[in-house]
């Protein structure tokens, strides 16, 4: 009897852990272990097989931070992040304001506004590769320009940012639409009785009310953009962009150092530096949050 009771007591503790076991093992093996390994590895000399040789302190970090290639990829990553997040959120905000009022056909245009969410980086890259073609592509024809988008030092990073900006419209739109529709209708009505013009209404009433969502989108976009690598790798691997230094980002640089050159020293250190820069940016943003974001 006592034995059975004890067994039941043990089961009561063990049972929930059994349900959690797969998830815990997964996160330990594929998130925490590699993160700790990357962190420790960045302080070691690592051979091309990935074995840790001996402790070198901050040597890896110093070498990477002094490397002009790394300065270049940092600059590229910042340009990309600064271009993508605001433009995409602004376009999505305008779309959300337009789609705010439900109409008979709203399902049609809401779907179209959100559709870029289903796009993948590689398909978008293939489509824009044709659109960017200097002679037969659509973009130069529509804009009346003669830009060699992908193989011009000045335009290559902008060209990549345009793709990503476009792809993020759908995601940002859905969040902003939900936020705007969540605003208490009576607030907007009382404003229109006051005769507030649409623009003023947007800036002085809607913007503060959706500022938590805007802040969330800025933070998540920034975190995502700082870690971008796919577009840079797709275009440089396929040879569509010849000067890789024009578009390589921190993570694509890490990838190339570790995977192509088997230089894990630079690879690990770059990964940790990229993580640290992003983390610091987040902290700064959260300090700004206290000033600029209104919570009810």
């Amino acid at each position, binding site marked *: 009897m006592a034995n059975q009771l004890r067994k039941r007591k043990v089961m009561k*503790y063990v049972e*929930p*852990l059994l*349900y*959690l076991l*797969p*998830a815990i093992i*997964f*996160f330990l093996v*594929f*998130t*925490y*272990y590699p*993160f700790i390994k*990357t962190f420790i590895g960045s302080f070691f000399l690592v051979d091309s097989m*990935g074995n840790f040789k001996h402790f070198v302190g901050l040597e890896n970090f110093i070498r990477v931070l002094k490397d002009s290639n790394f300065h270049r990829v940092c600059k590229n990553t910042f340009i990309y992040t600064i271009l993508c997040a605001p433009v995409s959120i602004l376009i999505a905000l305008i779309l959300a304001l*337009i789609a705010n*009022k439900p*109409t*008979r*056909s*709203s399902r*049609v*245009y809401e*779907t*179209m506004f*959100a*559709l*870029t*969410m*289903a796009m*993948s*980086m*590689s*398909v*978008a890259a*293939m*489509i824009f590769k*044709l659109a960017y073609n200097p002679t*037969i592509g*659509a973009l130069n024809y529509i804009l009346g320009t003669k830009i060699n988008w992908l193989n011009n030092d000045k335009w290559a990073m902008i060209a990549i940012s345009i793709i990503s900006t*476009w792809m993020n419209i759908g*995601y940002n739109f*859905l*969040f902003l639409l*939900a936020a705007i529709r969540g605003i208490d209708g009576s607030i907007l009505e009382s404003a229109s009785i006051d005769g507030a013009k649409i623009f003023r209404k947007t800036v002085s009433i809607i913007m503060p009310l959706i500022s938590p969502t805007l802040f969330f989108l800025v933070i998540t976009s920034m*975190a995502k953009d700082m*870690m971008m*690598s796919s577009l840079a*790798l*797709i275009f440089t691997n*396929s040879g569509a962009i010849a000067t890789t230094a024009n578009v390589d980002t921190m*993570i694509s640089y*890490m*990838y190339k150092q*570790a*995977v192509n050159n088997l230089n894990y020293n630079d*690879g690990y250190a770059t*990964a940790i530096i990229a*993580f640290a820069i992003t983390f610091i940016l987040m902290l700064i943003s959260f300090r700004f949050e206290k000033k600029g974001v209104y919570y009810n």
Partner: protein
Amino acid sequence: MKQIQNKRISRRTTISLVHQTLAILLGLVIIAPIIYALLISFMPANQILKRPPTFIPKKWILDNYKMAITSTTLGRFMINSLIMALTSSIMRVIISSMAAYALSFYKFKGRNFIFMLIMGTMMIPGDVVLVSNYQTVAKLGLINTYLGMMIIFFCNATNIFLMRQYFLTFSLTLKEAAVIDGCSNLRFFLQILMPLSTPVITTVFISSFISVWNQYLWPMLVTNENLMRTVQVGVTMLNFPDGVVYGPVMAASILVLLPTLLVFIIFQKRIVGGIMGGSVKG
């Protein structure tokens, strides 16, 4: 009086009609790159290479699609991606629902710690641990295998959080009542809780499917045999004879895009509910 009212209503419907038309036109501008790819995919090669570029095919042909399917291994890429996306999504539903069940229906020591441990993984981007994960998978001998391609997508903290939020809306008494009736904990989970949670399961499954189908970097890293490539990697490496490159590539892009596009349009409401972290109930 009535006339004025009628006039007002008709004026309002006109404004609404103009607004809707403009919104749809704007929608077409937003998806213009997709329409562009669609038009080019039906265009004969010599028209694509013409300058200045034209956008409406003079003759609508299927040659590009035939070429994309027959002269490449796109079909095999599709099957690989399908296996990867389906298995990962099923695993995500299983693993995250189990974890969410323990986190919402059990009280035990260390529950909050485990919850924080799981949520903490959101702070660590997958790209930062990419190289180390590659070494782990290589050591396990999983290079060029399906398991290696999808293993890092088997679990996701956001999904666990979403399911936990949903499970928390059920009262604990539901489980207590079932247990008093002689229902075991496992049976309650499988036969009562899961059937009641189909909305959140669909959300997790569909959003996982789209995100895994669209993965590029990891599948590229762990495969180097052509036959093991996924569509996302394959579509960037298609080789066609010079002069007919763009047509078949656009056709292939449309074929790769089609599954996620359809899934998105059909399940839009569910996916929207999913990305908003359960704040919108489906």
